[in-house]
């Protein structure tokens, strides 16, 4: 059991560290999504952000905000990873509790 216990213990530490790093990085990334509007013959870009019940749209300009889009894409990716990490932590915690009961 010692090996298995070590692996499970290290896995919890690994996921906790990952959760922390994900939260730190997520806090650095912008919220919202990029909206492209066609007005007349031109395209205009806006950043849509929900603030409570309201959705605000901030004008970004005529040029496609590629760097911002990449950051928003990264945010989505990290959020889905965070959900997986939290599911893994919950599973490990259940195993730990079950082990402690035995």
């Amino acid at each position, binding site marked *: 059991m*010692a090996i298995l216990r070590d692996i499970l213990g290290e896995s919890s530490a690994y996921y906790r560290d990952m959760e922390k790093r994900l939260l730190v990085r997520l806090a650095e990334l912008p919220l919202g999504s990029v909206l492209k509007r066609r007005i007349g013959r031109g395209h205009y870009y806006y950043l849509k952000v929900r603030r409570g019940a309201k959705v605000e749209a901030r004008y970004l300009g005529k040029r496609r905000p590629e760097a911002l889009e990449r950051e928003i894409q990264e945010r989505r990716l990290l959020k889905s990873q965070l959900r997986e990490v939290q599911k893994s932590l919950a599973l490990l915690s259940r195993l730990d509790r079950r082990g402690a009961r035995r």
Partner: protein
Amino acid sequence: MEDILHRVLKALDEEGLWDRGVELIGSWSYLMYQRHLGAPVYPFRTLDADFLVPWPYRGETRNLAAKLAEIGFRPASEPNGAIYFQHPELKIEFLVPERGKGGQDFRVVPSLGLKAVPLRFMDMLLNDSILIENAGVRVRVPHPAAYALHKLLIAQRRAKKEKKLKDIEQGVHTLAIVEPSDLASRLVEFPAGWKGLVMRSLREAWDLCPLERDVLAKHGFTPQN
């Protein structure tokens, strides 16, 4: 502490197997990188430890089964005839490189009394190894650059998504302790097909391991280039 693994490593050291080129490979060798070379923590080890044996093996005759029996391992057979060693905590398997047409279930290593499993892409690990001292016992493991490249290469041949992800993650984590020049000099020697598989894994790693993007960037792998 993985006490039982330490006893196995000690037994193989006493038999002089590291000097004959035998290597600890797989997730347990990553543990050695973690402990001794500063690799980031990656805990997903399997419950079997794999040892790679040079083929053909030219070492002295050793009664490995008896040596392993002293520390509680019993030999057992896979359905295909290969022999592994079993302990309540750990399974030990011996592998040899598969070359040519392949297709054999096992290879007999008479001087060690083994029936080892032949596997593809093992030569790149066998020909590129380092010795590490772990708690007073030597152990031969693949060079981290070779290990990373091997993981990134075989990831693309995995049928199971989870195994592929684990290979890519482990490969990328290993890259953290590899010098870019060490990686580049090995990658450049790869056949084009292998290089393509490694590059595909690295491209996928950008999204699969977003927290390790700085490691990928250190080696010059970004979606832009």
